[in-house]
């Protein structure tokens, strides 16, 4: 039989061992990506593998920064992802308000539709979207991509924000209405300001979805000046030789925005995820 003290020590040892094994599993590939982005291309597969290869430099980063075509991929990704976040939030806040504060015929059915819509496979929508975007003259445009991504972000955002609004007491907006404000005023002046944590986390999540999307970005754009980062990275592949260090440098640069968002908004992020998906 172990004493309490021995047990506590054992728990500590096991926890730390687990943490370190887990950390190497999670972080080693990312570390390798960063280290490879600094290596000279001929030394990428040098044996034995080293984290810091001789002749490491920023040259891969510099060649990306000095290439307007590659910079354009980043600009495109920012334009699309930011637009998707803002537009999704506006539309979703309005819808979530209706779900959270009103009773109306068809509410239950609409709720089920919005949950189910999340499960519609992108590949199913891809074929008709291709035809639809060509017909609407939105093929190979920002607008086309932004509209497309809203289909994927909106249901999630509505569900999350409805959950968030439901945690806020109705008295808040009721009180504003008694003071003679319309429900719209109560929403924008009372509910939205106190929902900032939830709104921020949903905004980050929608940004991530748009920033990361690959299938539609591949199919609904044609020219390099409309391509986003994921497709841009792929274009670096497969031409004649693999510029591994440049691909890794672009991957690092492509990961930084999401990483920074996560680091700065961790608390919101994790709090927001639970507001919508975990009911206590």
């Amino acid at each position: 039989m172990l004493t309490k003290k021995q047990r506590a020590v054992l728990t500590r040892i096991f926890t730390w061992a687990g943490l370190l094994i887990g950390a190497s599993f999670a972080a080693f590939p990312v570390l390798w990506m960063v280290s490879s982005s600094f290596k000279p291309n001929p030394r990428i597969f040098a044996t034995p593998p080293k984290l810091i290869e001789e002749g490491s430099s920023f040259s891969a980063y510099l060649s990306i920064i000095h290439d307007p075509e590659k910079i354009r991929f980043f600009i495109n990704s920012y334009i699309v992802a930011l637009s998707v976040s803002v537009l999704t939030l506006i539309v979703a806040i309005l819808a979530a308000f209706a779900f959270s504060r009103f009773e109306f015929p068809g509410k239950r059915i609409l709720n089920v539709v919005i949950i189910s819509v999340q499960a519609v496979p992108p590949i199913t929508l891809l074929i008709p979207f291709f035809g639809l975007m060509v017909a609407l003259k939105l093929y190979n445009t920002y607008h086309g991509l932004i509209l497309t991504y809203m289909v994927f972000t909106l249901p999630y955002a509505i569900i999350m924000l409805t959950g968030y609004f439901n945690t806020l007491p109705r008295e808040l907006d009721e009180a504003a209405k008694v003071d003679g404000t319309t429900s719209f005023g109560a929403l924008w002046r009372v509910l939205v300001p106190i929902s900032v944590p939830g709104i921020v986390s949903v905004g980050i999540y929608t940004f991530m979805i748009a920033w990361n999307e690959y299938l539609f970005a591949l199919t609904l754009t044609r020219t390099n000046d409309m391509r986003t980062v994921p497709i841009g990275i792929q274009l670096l592949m497969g031409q004649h030789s693999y510029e591994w260090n440049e691909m890794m440098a672009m991957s690092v640069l492509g990961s930084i925005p999401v990483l920074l968002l996560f680091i700065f908004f961790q608390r919101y992020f994790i709090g927001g995820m639970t507001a919508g998906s975990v009911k206590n």
Partner: protein
Amino acid sequence: MTVRTDLLKGNDGFMKSRSSIIQRIKGTAVPYAYLTPTLTLLTMLMATPIIMVVWYSFQSGAITDKNPHFVGFDNYIDVLTDPKFHTALANTVWFVVLSVVAHMIIGLAFAMMLNASCLSTFTKTFFRTLFVLPWLLTVAIIAILWRLILNPNGVANALLSGLGLIEPHKEWLADPHLALAAIILINIWAGYPFFMISILAGLQGIPADLYEAAEVDGAGPIRRFWSITLPQLKPIIVSMALLDIIWTSQQFALIWMTTGGGPLNKTEMLSTYTYKLAFAKYAFSSASSSAVIVLILSMLLAFFYVQSQRARD
């Protein structure tokens, strides 16, 4: 939308009931006004494409021909009798089951460690950030990164053959015996953090007095895990698992950018099979029926998900 109730004071009942009907109508109109943008978008970009793809699936020569004609279920019969479709379906099932089970186990294990009471807040935050890293990378980036790591001359082979575990220069993504396992491994790495974060949130929501009571009753840590932690987490785990099954079964980019469904169709999934029919062979009619089959399967999963959500309310 305010209704001036001050005019009604002291009026007779008739006026009151009439105004209440108007108020009811107005009251119903308000939520719909808020929902208009959402309903417009979903009609235009969700309902319309689904109707279109179903329509294509019953035609011959959809999109490509000037005058496609109705062929009933022919396309469905073609797809359902195609051996490649069977392969894709079987691969997808393996891919989903193994990925989701691993996501669940790793997510739960990591969340339990991050919730351990013996750690300081700083330690928890630090490791949580490390553990979440794979989730912050784009699928396209994950695919390229693992191609570098699993390259025959890459670091995985160097480390594993250095330890004497494998022959050197293994072609992880090009060997028919290894490719599916390699892709599942990549997907496990890419997807566990979502489970981890959700379970972590769930763990923090479990009332501490449950554990205290169990400790007083003399339950050890293993017993506490089985009889408190898991039952408390069950609703989260069930709905996460369903969501993960839906997402994993639809995974495209990861496979497309690592193996493209090869070698010898060993990693062909329903998504890559459908994509190739449409955008490599331009067989849009067959591709559409395959896409509808995938939709039906996903909707069945979604039905279970909605049921699980209902059970939680």
